[in-house]
């Protein structure tokens, strides 16, 4: 029987029911485990608590003192996110290059006829860098922040380090993917013309990959402005620290001012980053 070629791969028949059953089981198990009482929820118990809390938030504290405090916190958070993202890029470029497999095996490497020892060294290097990147990005920013607060003390600097390490891991992986994905023909041409590995990276790979790298870095900056607003919870400065204090001391109206500051700043950075990306693309 002739089969009509379709765009999608043919799906095995057991697939949808199995996944559906698995999803339903997962939800039921989670429902039981989190102990969410739907009746209490529908009776409005929880909603009443939330509503009462929200009512206490209003009106926001718009006194000059509260506003200037929120502005200082916002600027500190902005600074942490910017410097942290820069540190992340500084880490991600060398680590990303170290994790780029096409540099150590495949046609680019084989053309140089490396001995088995050098080949093994390349493979080991890629593996090691990939493990480092995985550890950096899997440990959440806030856990890194806890560690760095312990090491260098309170303040914005541990926040910068935490963002830099975590985001460095995320960007390093993304960068390696981009660097592996470039069009290989210019690289082969460079190699045929006698360029070494550094020359191939500088004149073949980076120019092709740059717009994508910048775009990823800007995207992660958007993520980091949110993260930086939270790191203060563990003592790493910025709006988070002020939010933590306001919540702990039941200063709800100041809390709303600070949350509004987070909202405004996140929206501004999203806009700025989108604008920069559109210009650079």
């Amino acid at each position, binding site marked *: 029987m002739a089969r009509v070629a379709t765009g*999608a*791969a043919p*799906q095995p028949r057991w*697939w949808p029911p199995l*996944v559906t059953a698995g999803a339903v089981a*997962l*939800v039921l*198990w*989670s*429902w039981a*485990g*989190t*102990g*969410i009482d739907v009746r209490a929820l529908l009776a409005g118990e*929880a909603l009443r*608590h*939330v509503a*009462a*809390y929200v009512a206490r938030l209003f009106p926001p504290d718009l006194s000059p003192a509260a506003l200037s405090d929120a502005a200082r916190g916002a*600027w*500190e958070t*902005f*600074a*942490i996110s*910017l*410097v*942290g993202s*820069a540190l992340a890029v500084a880490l991600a470029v060398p680590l990303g290059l170290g994790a780029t497999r096409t540099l150590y095996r495949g046609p680019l490497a084989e053309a140089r006829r490396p001995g088995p020892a050098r080949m093994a060294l390349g493979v080991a290097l890629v593996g090691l860098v990939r493990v480092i990147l*995985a*550890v950096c990005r*899997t*440990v*959440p920013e*806030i*856990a890194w922040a*806890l*560690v760095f607060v*312990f*090491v*260098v*003390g309170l303040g*914005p*600097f541990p926040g*910068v380090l935490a963002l830099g390490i975590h985001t460095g891991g995320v960007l390093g992986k993304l960068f390696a993917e981009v660097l592996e994905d470039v069009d290989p023909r210019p690289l082969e041409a460079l190699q045929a013309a006698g360029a070494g590995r550094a020359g191939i990276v500088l004149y073949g790979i980076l120019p092709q990959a740059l717009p994508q790298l910048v775009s990823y870095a800007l995207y992660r900056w958007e993520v980091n402005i*949110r*993260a930086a*607003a*939270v790191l203060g*919870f563990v003592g790493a400065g910025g709006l988070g620290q002020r939010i*933590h204090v306001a*919540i702990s001391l039941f200063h709800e109206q100041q*809390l709303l001012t600070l*949350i509004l500051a*987070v*909202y405004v700043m*996140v*929206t501004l950075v999203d806009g700025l980053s989108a604008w*920069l990306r559109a*210009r*650079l693309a």
Partner: protein
Amino acid sequence: MAWPAVPSPASPGRPRLSRLLVLALGATFVLALREAEVDPRLLLQPEARANVARFVAGALPPRLDADFIAFLARPVAETIQISVMGMVLALAIGLPLGMLATSSLTWRGILHEQAGGPVRRLLALLPWGLARGTLSVFRSIPEYVWAFMFVRAVGLGPFPGVLALGVAYGGMLGKVYSEILEGVDPQPLEALHAGGAGRSGVVLYGLLPQALPHLVSYTLYRWECAIRASAIMGFVGAGGLGQQIELSMRMFQFDEVLTLLAVLLLLVATVELVSGYIRARVVG
């Protein structure tokens, strides 16, 4: 002198970043560097070295006795459960709001061409704008801030974590859903419309079949993020692994911290694998 028009791949006809802008960005960066109190010497001073040594000495070997491993089962399960229930709530919030925020569903394009006069179309803008505004507020406040507030509102435990994930991720899902729904190929919709299909027919047979794989794929991707987030939200008292990490860190039990971080690493890697496998099949 006129240059031949060579299409530049960098920026066809658009202005590059001006020197002024680069200068402004540079100045901002220098100011930010000072504000962030960046001082690499802090990392090398004797006190920091002693702290690192204390941390490493305390963390090695990680705590792997049977008691602790058995004890870990509960926070791990709780982390997964919070992420799943949070995603259920996020879907319940994001799907309806996302559909309302889709301009092609509420006021623009093929579905609305002959639907009423300008007043009716203006009225349809109202829910669209409200939905977009709500989604924007939901997703712009980080989930940990939501979690912290919900802990205050409904008490400690997994429930505030579920609420926080649901609200923050509902906002993200809703926005991306509306982008996916607006981005579908309009031609099949027009064909259905021309063939006499009603509004629900166009949505059911034209819009959803095109959008569904992308909706499912993005939802799964968000679930990966939700696991990580639910582990972290514990830091503010919303249950799961994070609460344990925070506790062990505060008690200087670094051998427990190391085990907990390794478990978190394993959990996230497993979820990435499972979700990546399903996503590859769905979008295929």
